[in-house]
């Protein structure tokens, strides 16, 4: 998904780069409202990845704790 420069406040969306994720599971430990693990233990996005404003801090925490740099942010 591509994003463009933002001119107005818009919803944050989390994305996982499945090619990078190795199943460390840090995102699920830190933001279980936004991430889950599949049968192999790799991370998946819950729902469409839209981050409610009250979960933005948790989303950021998940991103900066991913050892594989597999979490990206996008703005709709």
């Amino acid at each position: 998904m591509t994003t463009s420069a933002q001119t107005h406040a818009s919803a944050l969306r989390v994305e996982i780069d499945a090619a990078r994720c190795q199943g460390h599971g840090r995102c699920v430990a830190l933001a279980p409202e936004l991430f889950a693990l599949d049968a192999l233990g790799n991370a998946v996005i819950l729902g469409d990845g839209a981050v409610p404003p009250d979960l933005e801090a948790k989303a950021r925490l998940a991103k900066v704790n991913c050892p594989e740099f597999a979490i990206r942010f996008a703005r709709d």
Partner: protein
Amino acid sequence: MTARPPVTDWATDFDHMHESWIENPYPIWDDLRQRCPIAHTDRFEGAYLPVRYADVREIAYDPEHFSSRRIVLRDERLPLVPFPPITSDPPQHRGQRAVLLPLFTPAAIAPYEAKVRELCRGLIDGFIDAGACDGAAHYAQEIPAVVTAMMLGISAADGDMFRRWLNDLLVLGTDDPELVMRTHAEMAGFFMAEVAKRRARPGQDLISRLIEARIDGAPMSDVELVGMVRLLLIAGIDTTWSALGSCLWHLATHAEDRRRLVADPSLMPTAVEEFLRAYSPVTIAREVVAETEIGGCPFKAGEMVLLSFAAANRDPAAFPDADKVLIDRAENRHAAFGLGIHRCIGSHLARMELTVALEEWLRRIPEFTLAPGAVVTWAAGAVRGPRQLPLVFP
């Protein structure tokens, strides 16, 4: 283990088995990061040592040039002994790993948590009235050995044998190739017999699950199967006990952190991650199989690489205040469990064991220190942690 020749210069003659590295490796890595971030040695028949996070990461991500077929740095190259998937490279690696991954997800290991807690409580019951114990031998070492035996469905009474195997392979074996090959053969014999038992009468344990597992529709060969089981034993035990021992050592020697953690148990998750970063127990190796260049340094085929995730985790370019242990560090993408396709499969199990073992210890023994005049000894070789940790809690 024999005495190692003195190191002339850590940049050109490093030796991770040398006593000054074993005692305190951090200043060595800090020094190298300043002046020669990729060191080399002619010991071990030739090996490189990256100490920057970026270089360690790049190598971990490059199995094409850096093979995992040899993952322990030894004085001489031994015949290849497979421990799939940790000793596997693509493309074989993926299917072998996929067999193990579902068995070690957080959901899969959750049922063991209550048993670990019970085990920890029992161990503490055994020494709390004495007011003293060896935190390494009487607590840290016991927990993962029993948990691993339980998961594999083998007798915990074999725990002493497991410890001897680990010591023979990872410590004494560094400069004793015959001992290593003899230990591998002994383990293979033991586990082949365990496999035969389960073929006759399948159970719910991990060995039974692996016998039933299929890779591309086919069962694993005995060599793959026994190699995988040996890996679960080796990888799960002294790694975790070393990490737990280091946590106890830190808390015994840093009263302010210990009291803060006791007063505010909600700090436990960040504290555990920070201990994993600061005292990462595991240093693995790679073999250069095709010439390449990393960080401006040529890597010659046939040489080894000592891949120190512990050194990467102490790199100030990747971690602010890298040399400080901050139990509330919120941003911590440490590499204690490795990076890339070989991420430690047991990481969720290890985190659970560490967390439960520390919670139970601090609940019962909130105040403790090193015993007066205590001599703390650290393991030599691929895994770092205290081997002798005399603690008192009067």
